[in-house]
């Protein structure tokens, strides 16, 4: 009888403890990012319509088609081309394999000018470049397409990036040259550290104060260099494992405070002071990285499989999704993520709930 009373007491005590735990230990759920699908357009069936007043055209490039759409899902223009095209929010043109002169256009379809340099044109925002025949020379053009400056070399260009402050060019011999906006070589250095020097990725920070590279084979190396007069002072470096001869994404954040770089099997993240760094495993070759507030989206490709990774700054991998496609892209604008796949473009809104 005494034992039964004792058991009942302990059961009662346990239930009391559970109730007290539920009441006092409960915490409200933290807010999480949620992806809310908004719309999806098919560029192969939807007819383009003129840009609405006040709407901002956003460019897309999917395989052999390119054009502009708006945040509201309006297809503004679409072009198909047999060889290649280059497009940015400022300009668009398509060109042939033996291109020696080509007209280029604003996003609204009006003619912007003519590029008369032979080679492959390339638009990076409102900057116009032409990669000349031979693979070792590059020209920057004025807004009307006329030549602004030319770098002519004998060693193949393997990496390139530009900002308003100029551009950085990486070469197969392991040399990195920074060229000012007016075409002068202002800095030149060799990151080195590997048996086979070759620059596979390079970036110039938007504020113009840092250069970052991925270089070498056997021992591949990431280097972050801060500009110091005519020299480049290395503030952070690390070896990133396996050899891989693919070109590599290297990109600064818009405020130049974070650098992301792709290596075989991963994404490296470093703050520009070199005090904090991290790695996130990713599949395939990184093609594009887009910022949206405190989030970063990375598009990678492995064979025909594309993967979009969502990363919260600094290095929290929030999630990823994959799809098979012949071509794809990602873009961000405000808190929107646009995902292109073959002929479709989808808008996904990012909400923290």
């Amino acid at each position, binding site marked *: 009888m005494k034992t039964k009373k004792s058991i009942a007491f302990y059961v009662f005590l346990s239930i009391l403890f559970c109730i007290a735990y539920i009441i006092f230990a409960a915490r409200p759920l933290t807010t999480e990012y949620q992806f809310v699908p908004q719309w999806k357009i098919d560029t192969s069936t939807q007819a383009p319509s003129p840009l609405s007043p006040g709407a901002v055209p956003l*460019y*897309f*490039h*999917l*395989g*052999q088609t390119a054009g502009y759409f708006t945040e509201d899902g309006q297809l503004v223009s679409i072009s198909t081309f047999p060889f*290649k095209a*280059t*497009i940015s929010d400022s300009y668009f043109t398509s060109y042939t*394999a*033996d*291109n*020696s002169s080509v007209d280029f256009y604003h996003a609204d379809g009006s003619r912007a000018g003519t590029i008369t*340099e*032979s*080679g*492959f*044109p*390339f638009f990076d925002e409102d900057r116009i470049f032409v*990669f*000349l*025949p*031979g*693979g*070792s*020379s590059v020209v920057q053009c004025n807004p009307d397409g006329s030549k602004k*400056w*030319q770098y*002519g*070399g*004998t*060693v*193949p*260009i393997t*990496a*390139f*990036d530009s900002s308003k402050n100029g551009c950085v060019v990486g070469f*197969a*011999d*392991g040399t990195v040259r920074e060229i000012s906006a007016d075409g002068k*070589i202002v800095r030149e250095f060799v990151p080195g550290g590997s048996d*086979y020097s*070759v620059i*596979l990725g390079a970036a110039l920070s938007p504020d113009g104060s840092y250069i970052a590279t991925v270089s070498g*084979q056997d021992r591949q190396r990431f280097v972050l260099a801060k500009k110091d007069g005519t020299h480049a002072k290395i503030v952070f470096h690390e070896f990133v494992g396996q*050899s891989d*001869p*693919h*070109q590599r*994404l290297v*990109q600064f954040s818009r405020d130049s405070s974070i650098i992301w770089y792709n290596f075989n099997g991963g994404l490296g993240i470093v703050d520009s002071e070199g005090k904090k760094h991290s790695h996130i495993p990713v599949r395939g070759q*990184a*093609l*594009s*990285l887009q910022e949206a507030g405190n989030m970063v989206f990375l*598009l990678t*490709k492995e064979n025909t499989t594309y993967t979009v990774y969502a990363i919260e700054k600094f290095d929290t991998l929030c999630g990823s999704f994959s799809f098979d496609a012949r071509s*794809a*892209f990602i873009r961000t604008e405000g808190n929107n993520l646009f995902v*292109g796949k073959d002929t479709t473009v989808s808008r996904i809104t990012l909400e923290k709930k």
Partner: protein
Amino acid sequence: MKKSLILPLLFATVPLAAFDWPQEEIMSDSFYSYFGQLRGGTISTSLIFADPSDVKAADDGKVIAVISEYDDDSCFFPSSFGNAVIVAHNDNLLTVYGNIDGETLSKTIYNTSGTVKTGTVFGSSGNSGWQQGRSSLEFQVVDTKNNTAINPRVLMPRIGEELPLTLTGITLESKTGTRYDLLVQRTIPSGLYRVYRQRQPVAIPYRSRVTINGIIIDTIAYDQLIREGNTVCAAGLRYYSKDVLYPDDRLQLLGEVTLTPGKNTLGMTLADILGKETTSAYSLIIY
């Protein structure tokens, strides 16, 4: 004959090649475009093959870079090589194989250690790079120690005859830009002149030489091209950039001479890679 003399003589009669063919072998006069030619507004550092073929390593080495064309909106620049493989060899040499068809680009070359043997196939030449007409493989040799592009044909085997070279349309250009066509004008003022010939669309000399009264004044060599500042140049008496070497689509520089008052015999010689020469001379009255 002494044995010590036989070996050097034997080697002197057999063309030595440091590199094997980077694709199926072709006759010496069958390339689409030669090193040093005017190509797309630049002095070409490439040897362009005419017919599609499997692309293969010209020597043992290590694949250090694979440049790709991207159909996607990516962060990468559009190289005029299209799809290309870059291989590092001994003696600070790189070989570059451009304009490879993306579908055929071998993935195994970078799944392993990246080392390749002579003859390793990278893929087939295609139409991914900047190209004209029947262009196929774009092949380059780069000396990274001296920062020069080397004429690939110097290091490659050669088969058959070279393309014939011609010395026509000889034109002198003064420092002020005045041009004198030597076919119609042989009396010209004294001064420094650039001597031009009518450029042949495909054939290009291995060396050009200009003489005054039998004395060599200038020799431009196309065994290598160098980078001088931001410009690719051919070396002669000075370094000649594209704007001097090819002032327009029609002319090619043979050299620079200073003509002094009196009777001068201006001689010009073109030599192909086998040393076969084509010469011409003009008697000029200089005042």
